[in-house]
């Protein structure tokens, strides 16, 4: 399909790069923002790491399940921080009262979304890479030892985080900063259902089908299979990817509909609370 340059779906890498540059300038200029990226993942990893260390000394099963807690914490952080990185970059525009400038510029929604996706990876890398190194130093847990499986886990978790981030950004665009709390809290709805720290079989039978509708469930289940049974399950990753395609498409569709609704209701000229 050939898109006209004046189409809403046209994509100019220059404009997406402009937005990425804008967030990079911001991040570079603010050390509290950089510290914040590393602070929480470190605190969480250290807390859960010591808990796992304690349990391993007292239970045979957990001795075999070495690293599942720290692994789960790190993978959960990819999911949570990926979404947060996306949503916070978006909300920087709302906080700066700059969204009007962007919406009346030639920037297309897909270019904006692409820049936010790139920034979520940048922010995640700044926050998580040092923490994964600390996990090796403190607890001898090497996340990168998962090899190709880690790539599959990462891709699936990022896709889910972007799908949720896109949806939340649409809600904030439509409803103003009153919806900001969703950006911080929505992923925690996924936490019990995606079985981050326990197998799906732990859930009541009636809730298990719901868990299997969520792509991260496959990732966390796949991680436990890898760390406990030393088996990589590509079938779980393919199922997660298929669900992620649906989640991502639904996220983009919702964002475009919410943007349309924001235009109809004049929400783009009143972007406060």
């Amino acid at each position, binding site marked *: 399909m050939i898109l006209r340059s004046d189409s809403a779906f046209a994509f100019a890498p220059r404009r997406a*790069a402009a937005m990425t540059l804008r967030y990079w300038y911001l991040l570079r200029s603010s050390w509290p923002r950089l510290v914040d990226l590393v602070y929480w993942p470190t605190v969480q990893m250290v807390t859960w790491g010591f808990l796992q260390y304690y349990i391993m000394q007292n239970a045979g099963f957990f001795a075999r399940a070495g690293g599942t807690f720290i692994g789960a914490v790190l993978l959960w952080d990819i999911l949570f921080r990926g979404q947060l990185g996306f949503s916070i970059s978006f909300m920087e525009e709302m906080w*700066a009262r*700059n969204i009007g400038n962007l919406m*009346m510029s*030639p920037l297309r929604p897909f270019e904006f979304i692409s820049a936010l996706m790139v920034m979520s990876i940048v922010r995640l890398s700044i926050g998580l890479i040092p923490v994964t190194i600390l996990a090796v130093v403190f607890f001898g847990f090497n996340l990168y030892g998962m090899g190709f499986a880690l790539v599959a886990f990462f891709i699936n978790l990022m896709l889910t985080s972007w799908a949720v981030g896109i949806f939340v950004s649409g809600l904030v665009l439509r409803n103003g900063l009153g919806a900001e709390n969703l950006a911080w809290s929505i992923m925690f709805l996924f936490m019990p259902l995606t079985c981050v720290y326990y197998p799906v079989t732990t859930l009541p039978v009636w809730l298990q089908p719901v868990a299997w509708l969520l792509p991260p469930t496959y990732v966390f289940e796949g991680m436990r299979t890898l760390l406990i049974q030393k088996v990589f399950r590509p079938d779980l990753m393919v199922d997660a990817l298929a669900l992620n395609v649906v989640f991502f498409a639904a996220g983009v569709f919702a964002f475009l509909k919410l943007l*349309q609704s924001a235009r109809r209701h004049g929400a783009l*000229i009143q972007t406060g609370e």
Partner: protein
Amino acid sequence: MSAMSAPAPAPIAIERLVKIYKTIPAVDGISFTLAAGSITGLLGGNGAGKTTTIATIMGLTTPTSGRVTVLGADMPRQRYRVLHRMNFESPYVAMPMRLTIRQNLTVFGMLYGVRDLPHRIAELGEQLELTELLDRPTGKLSDGQKTRVALAKGLINSPELLLLDEPTASLDPDTADWVRGRLESYRRERNATVLIASHNMAEVERLCDRVIIMKRGRIEDDDTPPKLLARYGRRTLEEVFLDVARGRGIQHEAAQ
């Protein structure tokens, strides 16, 4: 231009525009067309419908009914055909405060596809007396300097159509006068069309070839400043504005 070529579309053409938020009409059936190279003032009290009108022209709001055409493109449906040829400046829309002026102008220049961006930024820096400040964070500037930066952003793509919302709000008289001078010379140099929403009657009187006065979503009057003054028998546009706002209507013509 040859005699055979089609006339250029009007920079702005509004036909029977209605915008209703839930049940409240913000704009109630207004129509006007702006001529290329003109400066038009859009006057009205709070809630008159000025901001909604400008937002609709920029494609930020969808009309409930009626038609808004900008540089020949239907808004908001065909907005991407023309957004790179227009721009907007308002003290109520801010720019990222932590970014330096140069960084902000670089980002917006890239968004608008400006060629030879470093040269354009240097040129604007010189014209708007910002050269010494280019590497200073935008948040550390005075209100007057911020207004000049917002104007630089508004001019970054050398727009054919410039929309301004209260361009001199919160500025001291000297800086405000300087900004007005810049706007006049920009219009002259580029034959740009400018639409200004303002509460500052002296500003409108000095800059505008034409004044559209809105009240409760409707156009109450529309003419050149001298004709409005004559029609209402007043010496200043502020007095004309007060007559319209308080429903006193046309006095001078009636007296004649």
